[in-house]
């Protein structure tokens, strides 16, 4: 095993820096047992923020009143409520952010008070795919 070049006693050694660099650049860097094969993965940061999965928590008829949005890969779940303040053809949606639950947490965290915000409907369509 290569000595860790970040340790004080190795700071002037030039070996092993490449692996640290590769690990800093990629999401995953793994060597096989023989050490002659490296497997690296880099996930796309652009696609990870552009896809959301949507699931309806509460609905009445065709209308969704409480919806959960979850980015892919999952990092957080946003619970949003549609206030239905505006008619459907209005260019703005009025939503209330009720809860944010980071992935892996058992209980939802903040905001304590619902946050009301309006977003332009075409942006809503692009951002959330609905």
């Amino acid at each position, binding site marked *: 095993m290569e000595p860790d070049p970040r340790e004080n006693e190795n700071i002037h050694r030039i070996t092993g820096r*490449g*692996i640290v*660099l*590769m690990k800093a*650049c*990629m999401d995953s*860097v793994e060597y096989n047992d023989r050490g*002659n*094969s*490296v*497997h*690296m*993965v*880099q*996930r*796309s*940061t*652009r*696609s*990870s923020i552009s896809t959301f999965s949507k699931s309806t928590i509460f609905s009445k008829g065709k209308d969704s009143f409480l919806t959960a949005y979850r980015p892919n890969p999952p990092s957080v779940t946003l619970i949003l409520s549609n206030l239905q303040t505006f008619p459907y053809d209005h260019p703005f949606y009025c939503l209330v952010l009720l809860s944010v639950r980071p992935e892996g947490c058992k209980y939802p965290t903040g905001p304590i008070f619902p946050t009301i915000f309006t977003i332009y409907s075409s942006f809503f369509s692009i951002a959330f795919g609905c």
Partner: protein
Amino acid sequence: MHKTTVIKASSDLAHKLCREIASQIDSNYFSKEDIFNIKLAIEEAMINAVEHGNKLESLKDIAVDYSITSDAFEISITDE
């Protein structure tokens, strides 16, 4: 897209293959920073394979297996 290729252990061939792989990464899905990070990491891994793995012996092979999707870039680089 998934590709497997084998090159001889030469720095020139390794650099050429790195450029070829990087040119296939779609900037619609990967940010400039993603692509820069991938280029840097694969160049480093290829040079390690040429210089340390195959000890600059140009008759030895380096196998490169990579896949590019809209979600992720994956690569395996294996020397002898």
